[in-house]
């Protein structure tokens, strides 16, 4: 009797094992990724990972939504320090120097073996490669990339007697229009602000500051090697002073308007013009109950905008097959112009490859919604986003200084001078 039972059990076990013997081993990759804008990119990323898994059943990428860009950096750094290095992550492009200094990044060039691969690697917009390359090697593959564009409420332009098809093209016009677009009630309280360029640390204050320096002949606030910053340069101070003057005019809310509420302020028609990432374009389009336009940023002496957004990174210290799987996934995501175009249409991010703009779906979309091209067209004036060694610490110094200037606790000049010496103290370790 006993023997019979054990025989039966053994048979059951065997039968149970058969399907597993046929199944290939699946490589699972956790991929941290940030989303900082509306439009629900998190759901889109998940859908793309599912689609990839159907095409490559032996690789499964689990997207781990980790909050903002800064939170994602925090999580990945913590994971690395705890010895749980991920094979792949979608992170801020500007984390490059910091990750590089830790010696944890693979460069992509060493994986590219054939001509097709070379074509893929060289096929991205140059503007986006500025925050992706170091010493002639590529460490980041552009994915959710953006520039800052100007959104404006055309209805309000008409109401204020401005031409809705002629947005401000330079600082002087911006200042003037913003004043005209500001509305006060009988008691003298502002009920609508002409402009909002968010300046809080929880958002991207340093990024917004760059919009006012890069429009001065493309002047950037850091060196190409990520070891110098130019916070106390006259042009940086001039940019910050101009930004602050919009608040002093009363045409921008005093203090530090929040990045997180700027879009809803715009949608609620409490603000006529806003600076925000193009990554919010689709969201604004879906939710605006009024006629709005987009344009490149007004110039001082030139046009300009920082690029922004996230790149794919590959990390050292994981099994080789995981790295290969991650590499396959990244290529799959970024090499297909149709996929890149669809991602851009779904979110508003700039398609990272010129060929995506030649696809039929992108042409149709742009014909119907010309704003879809604003950020792309601005790329020729775009420069690297603020990126240095020890990014977390230096960025915090700059953000704090901007908040101090905008809230009036320091003059722009003093704020930037203090920030310069604090940042120099940190960057000295890398020189």
């Amino acid at each position, binding site marked *: 009797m006993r023997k019979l039972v054990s025989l039966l059990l053994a048979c059951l076990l065997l039968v149970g094992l058969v399907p597993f013997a046929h199944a290939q081993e699946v490589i699972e990759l956790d991929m941290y990724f940030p989303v900082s804008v509306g439009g629900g990119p998190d759901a889109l990323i998940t859908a793309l990972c599912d689609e990839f898994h159907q095409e490559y059943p032996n690789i499964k990428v*689990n997207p781990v939504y980790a909050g903002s860009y800064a939170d994602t950096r925090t999580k990945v750094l913590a994971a690395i320090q705890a010895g749980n290095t991920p094979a792949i992550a979608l992170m801020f492009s500007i984390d490059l120097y910091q990750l590089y200094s830790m010696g944890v990044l693979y460069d992509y060039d060493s994986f590219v073996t054939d001509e097709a691969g070379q074509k893929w690697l060289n096929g991205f917009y140059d503007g986006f490669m500025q925050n992706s390359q170091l010493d002639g090697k590529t460490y980041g593959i552009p994915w959710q990339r953006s520039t800052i564009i100007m959104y404006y409420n055309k209805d309000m332009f008409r109401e204020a007697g401005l031409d809705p098809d002629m947005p401000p093209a330079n600082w002087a016009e911006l200042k003037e229009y913003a004043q005209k677009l500001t509305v006060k009630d009988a008691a003298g309280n502002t009920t609508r602000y002409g402009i909002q360029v968010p300046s809080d640390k929880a958002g991207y204050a340093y990024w917004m500051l760059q919009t006012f320096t890069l429009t001065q002949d493309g002047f950037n606030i850091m060196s190409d090697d990520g070891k110098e910053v130019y916070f106390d340069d006259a042009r940086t101070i001039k940019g910050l002073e101009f930004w602050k003057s919009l608040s002093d005019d009363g045409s921008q809310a005093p203090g530090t308007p929040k990045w997180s509420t700027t879009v809803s302020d715009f*949608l609620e028609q409490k603000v006529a013009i806003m600076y925000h990432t193009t990554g919010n374009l689709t969201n604004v389009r879906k939710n605006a109950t009024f006629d709005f336009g987009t344009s490149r940023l007004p110039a001082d002496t030139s046009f300009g905008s920082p690029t922004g957004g996230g790149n794919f990174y590959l990390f050292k210290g994981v099994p080789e097959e995981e790295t290969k799987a991650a590499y396959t996934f990244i290529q799959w995501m970024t090499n297909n112009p149709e996929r890149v175009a669809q991602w851009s249409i779904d979110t508003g991010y700039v398609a990272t490859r010129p060929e995506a703009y030649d696809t039929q779906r992108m042409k149709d979309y742009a014909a119907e919604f010309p704003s879809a091209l604003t950020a792309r067209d601005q790329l020729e004036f775009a420069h690297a986003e603020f990126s240095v060694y020890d990014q977390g610490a230096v960025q915090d110094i700059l953000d704090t200084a901007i908040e101090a200037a905008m809230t009036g606790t320091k003059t722009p000049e003093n704020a930037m001078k203090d920030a310069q010496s604090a940042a120099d103290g940190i960057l000295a370790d890398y020189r």
Partner: protein
Amino acid sequence: MTTKTAPRFRWKLSLGMTLSYIAMFLIAAVFLIPLIWMVRTAFIPNQHATNLLAIAWPTLDNFTRIWQAAPWGTYYTNTFIIVFGVLAMQFITIILAGYAFARLDFHFKNTLFILFLMQIMIAADVLILPNYKTISAMGLSNTLFGAMLPFFASAMGTFLMRQTIKTIPYELEEAAKIDGCNLPRMLLQIYVPLLVPALIAHGMIAASYQWNNFLWPLIVINSVANRPLTVGLAIFAMSYETGAQWSDVSAATFLVAAPLLVLFFLFQKRFVQSFAHSGIK
């Protein structure tokens, strides 16, 4: 007491009472406003969310939408595991330690007592950095066990047990000893039944602490699969940086806050007594 003064006295008192009634009900109303507003925004169609004066039929649309947008089911499961895991372990550790402090005479009793006090004085949140290092070194980062482990002992709970055990007549224990009852059986059969009210009191406080805990799980937990509700809510709220989705964030906030609030509304007295109980007299 003369009939002359009594009515006047009462009138004066009732004027004071009336004023304080008005003041206190006003404060109660002000206290309730944020809750009412959150609930209202969670149930209103989202196009009306930012309009304070809008009136519309309540809808569950916001909940259906957010339920698809984030794995709330997973978050709930994780929070439940953390809450009940911590409670189960704490019940064991605090009964044992509470009994030792209440009934046993031993060397360095006062020193050990002060060590327990340290846990109350230095809140666990303050030690996030070294504790994170410890948990990482143990290989427990990104595990629910790692999120629970530092809370397996509770000085508050230990003191509560000690105090309650002291009120239990020692004769019960002596009688049991004469009957040949050993310590584990005595604890289980004599003390635990009498400690139930105190355990419930402690349980409610510890459960609400764990339910609401944020900073520690934020740091320890990385993957979505192990994320508890509070961390899920914070990350969800920040994914809507556009701010346009107030109704979504309110609905999510409601999801996270509702279980404890509903329990509280149902067992109001019990909650209040439990929390009062934890105040060591």
